[in-house]
């Protein structure tokens, strides 16, 4: 009885202490606040890491019951399961399990062999010879030969082809003639023997290897009934794909799941997990991971999600860096952006560190070059453009924008009022308030507007914006991140609405005109410095990606280039005792 009373007293005392402890801490930080309201928190940048599960046995029953099935999430596949014809990126994910390419990339973006055992590139860097692995088969058991590769490249040249792949970039000899109907075959494609194919191009292009070495379609299956100029018949085959990837399609339940079966004819052996499923989900879909309905999810990378995943116990957690970068683009057709000092001022005057830290809580870093830190081309030897209000003010003064009525800068009677267009999301929620404050101090009025992605694309293509936010897709080659800065690319909507810099043009050309990575590194460094001096964009962030998988499954090791598609053949389910 007495003991109980004492412990109760102790509890109250402790409680009081801990409460007062809390409040002193808080008031301490409050005292600091008025003195330095703009002080930024010290946000630690989170390194790429793998955090193993602490207690596999905590896995929910629903997951434990699936002994031969692995479930991953995917937002919304559309049913066009063909790597060259899909219209929706998620169908690309579905296809990548079914179709294997000749050449893929590793986690640093360097080419690695898949269906092709090796490849040779001629000394003039124009001719590619792919050597296929012996005894390759499609999932129905039919042989995969160089003829199939030739067929795949041929239909991409067809004038009725409406997919995303731009094969003409590789400039295969005779490709244009085929498209225009002047030739029956493509001159530059030669099948040497069933295991060897040679492709001759007319221009050196560092990107050609991966385009030419893409996924292979079966000629017997997809080529039946092909006549040049007519690809309509393919539509019926999109729901019944045939490839040489680790898995084959079992069943597509619209709006719900894509089910796969292990492909026994896969060149590296039949995958250990018999069933693989992509489940259609919206957003993080944390609830499905928590209830055990899914084994693999990707999440918004932030402290909250990481903590929650750790607390689950059964989650193996991956933190890795995306190959995409996000940016705010200037509308270079606007006269006031012609002066690069104005653009520089807008970068110096925006506290990007604060935006990135607040939005991503350490799971993102400020970007200064248009390539991800995981790429071989990444460099930090560029102007870091740290937040510097005074410098920004000085630059605007120099450029002739003087403080006017209401604190808004003016030049020739025109106010410096900028329209900023963006989509709704966690970044814009944070960016808009901070940018408005920052620019107000600088004497620039910022008007923000939210719209859906497609409207954003259409309106920026028209040049309705002064500033607009975007993020790139996954970038495989460093050239993917800079191609839009060429003056001949104007008008394209990732583009710049008229950015033009002869030196940049020259370096862009040089960057893809050699296949030697060391040489390219130097060229890109020079390019990035030029882009820093005459900025086409305000580079914002490189983000971390956060994925987790149930520890009962081993083999997941996603990377920023290929996601999990490279892991699928290696998945294993480990029984939980």
């Amino acid at each position, binding site marked *: 009885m007495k003991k109980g009373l004492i412990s109760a007293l102790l509890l109250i005392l402790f409680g009081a202490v801990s409460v007062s402890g809390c*409040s002193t801490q*808080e008031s301490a930080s409050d005292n600091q*606040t008025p003195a330095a309201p703009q002080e930024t*928190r010290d946000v630690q940048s989170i390194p790429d890491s793998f955090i193993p599960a602490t207690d596999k046995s905590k896995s929910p029953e629903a997951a434990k019951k699936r002994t031969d099935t692995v479930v991953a999430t995917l937002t919304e596949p559309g049913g066009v399961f063909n790597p060259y014809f899909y219209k929706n990126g998620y169908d690309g994910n579905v296809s990548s399990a079914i179709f294997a390419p000749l050449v893929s990339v590793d986690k640093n973006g360097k080419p690695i062999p898949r269906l092709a055992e090796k490849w040779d590139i001629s000394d003039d860097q124009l001719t590619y010879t792919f050597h296929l692995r012996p005894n390759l088969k499609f999932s129905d058991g039919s042989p995969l030969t160089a003829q199939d590769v030739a067929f795949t490249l041929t239909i991409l040249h067809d004038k009725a082809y409406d997919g995303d792949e731009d094969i003409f970039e590789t400039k295969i000899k005779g490709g244009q003639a085929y498209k225009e109907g002047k030739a029956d075959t493509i001159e530059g494609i030669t099948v040497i023997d069933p295991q060897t194919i040679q492709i001759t191009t007319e221009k050196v292009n560092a990107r050609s290897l991966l385009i030419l070495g893409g996924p292979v379609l079966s000629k017997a299956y997809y080529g039946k009934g092909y006549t040049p100029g007519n690809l309509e018949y393919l539509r019926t085959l999109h729901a019944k794909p045939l490839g040489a990837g680790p898995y084959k399609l079992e069943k597509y339940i619209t709006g719900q799941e894509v089910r796969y079966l292990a492909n026994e004819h896969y060149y590296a052996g039949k995958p250990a997990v018999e069933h693989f499923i992509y489940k259609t989900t919206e957003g993080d879909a*944390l609830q499905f991971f928590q209830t055990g309905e899914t084994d693999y999810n990707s999440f918004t990378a932030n402290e909250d999600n990481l903590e929650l995943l750790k607390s689950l116990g059964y989650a193996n957690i991956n933190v890795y860096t995306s190959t995409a970068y996000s940016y705010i683009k200037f509308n270079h057709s606007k006269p006031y952006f012609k002066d690069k000092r104005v653009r520089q001022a807008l970068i110096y005057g925006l506290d990007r560190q604060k935006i990135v830290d607040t939005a991503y809580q350490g799971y993102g870093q400020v970007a200064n070059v248009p390539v991800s830190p995981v790429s071989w081309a990444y460099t930090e030897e560029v102007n870091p453009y740290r937040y510097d209000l005074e410098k920004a003010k000085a630059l605007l003064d120099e450029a002739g924008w003087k403080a006017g009525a209401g604190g808004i800068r003016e030049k020739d009677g025109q106010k410096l009022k900028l329209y900023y267009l963006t989509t709704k999301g966690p970044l*814009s929620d944070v960016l808009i308030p901070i940018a408005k404050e920052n620019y107000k101090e600088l004497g620039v009025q910022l008007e923000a507007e939210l*719209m859906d992605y497609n409207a954003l694309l259409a309106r920026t293509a028209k040049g*309705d914006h002064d500033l607009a936010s975007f993020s790139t897709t996954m970038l495989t080659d460093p050239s993917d991140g800079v191609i839009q800065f060429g003056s001949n690319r104007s008008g394209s909507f990732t583009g710049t609405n008229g950015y033009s810099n002869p030196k940049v043009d020259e370096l862009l050309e040089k960057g893809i005109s050699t296949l030697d990575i060391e040489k390219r590194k130097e060229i890109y460094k020079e390019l990035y410095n030029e882009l820093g001096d005459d900025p086409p964009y305000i580079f914002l962030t490189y983000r971390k990606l956060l994925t987790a998988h149930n520890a009962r499954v081993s083999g997941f090791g996603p990377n920023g280039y290929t996601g999990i598609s490279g892991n699928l053949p290696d998945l294993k389910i480990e029984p939980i005792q």
Partner: protein
Amino acid sequence: MSSIVTETAGLAGARAGARRSSLWRDTFAKLKKNKVAMCGLVFLVMMFLFCFIGPFFSPYASGKVNTVMINKPPSLVHWLGTDNLGRDILTRLMQAGRISLTVGLAAMVLSVFIGSVLGVVAGYYRGVVDQIVMRFADILMTIPGLPLLFIIGAILSEWKVPTDYRIYIVMLMLSLIGWPELARLVRSQILSLREREFMQATESLGLRDHRKLFFHLLPNTVPILIVVATLRVGGAILSESILSYLGLGVVPPTPTWGNMIDAANTLIDFQKRPWLWIPPGFAIFATVISINLLGDGLRDALDPKMKR
């Protein structure tokens, strides 16, 4: 359904024309007896005071971003805690209330205005005018609200609207999809009203059309309009939050109850930070329910037999 509405509403209308002032007194007397509705009314008045006067007493009214004080739970300094940008939730709640209540009221006023003018005109002139207006209303009503909002939202984004005026776009969107139903309602009332004796009197007095329409016919539809309009305000506040959820609403940093909830609309915040979503959630919930209870009370008070 429409035939019966017409009939009973007609009765109400006639009475309204005959002895309006006593009708209002009657109504209020009846309303006062309805405790539930009175609770709603009192709460609404308090909510208005809270939102429109409250911010003047707040030290955080500037809404400045404060990255040192991110996501802090309620304390003596910040009574309802702070949000993901270190802003005071209580202050934002009050400021958001101003916007959300204004949007609700304005969207209602606008749709009632468009709806009743078109309804009166259609009901009075009949014939071609009626056909044109009502067919157009029919057409609009065949397209469900949400898809229509998507489209209108995307189209209106083409207008370069400064952030601060975005709220008017939201009002406009909500009233654009709201008027046809009201126009139908008003028209059916007018159709029966114009056959009544007092209209024959205006005829023999030789009054002009617009006098007849707006001074004699329209006032008779006021009782039913008030009820519908009250309920509309609640609907508009909910719609505003849904627009925010879809990214078509008022642009942050301007707070609305809708975008405040939306900013905390994740499982994690639901579990870890109740102070982010409970205040705006409660504000929407309590306001909408109060408005609806009041509207319902008004309906009972104005005419016990009247339908929605």
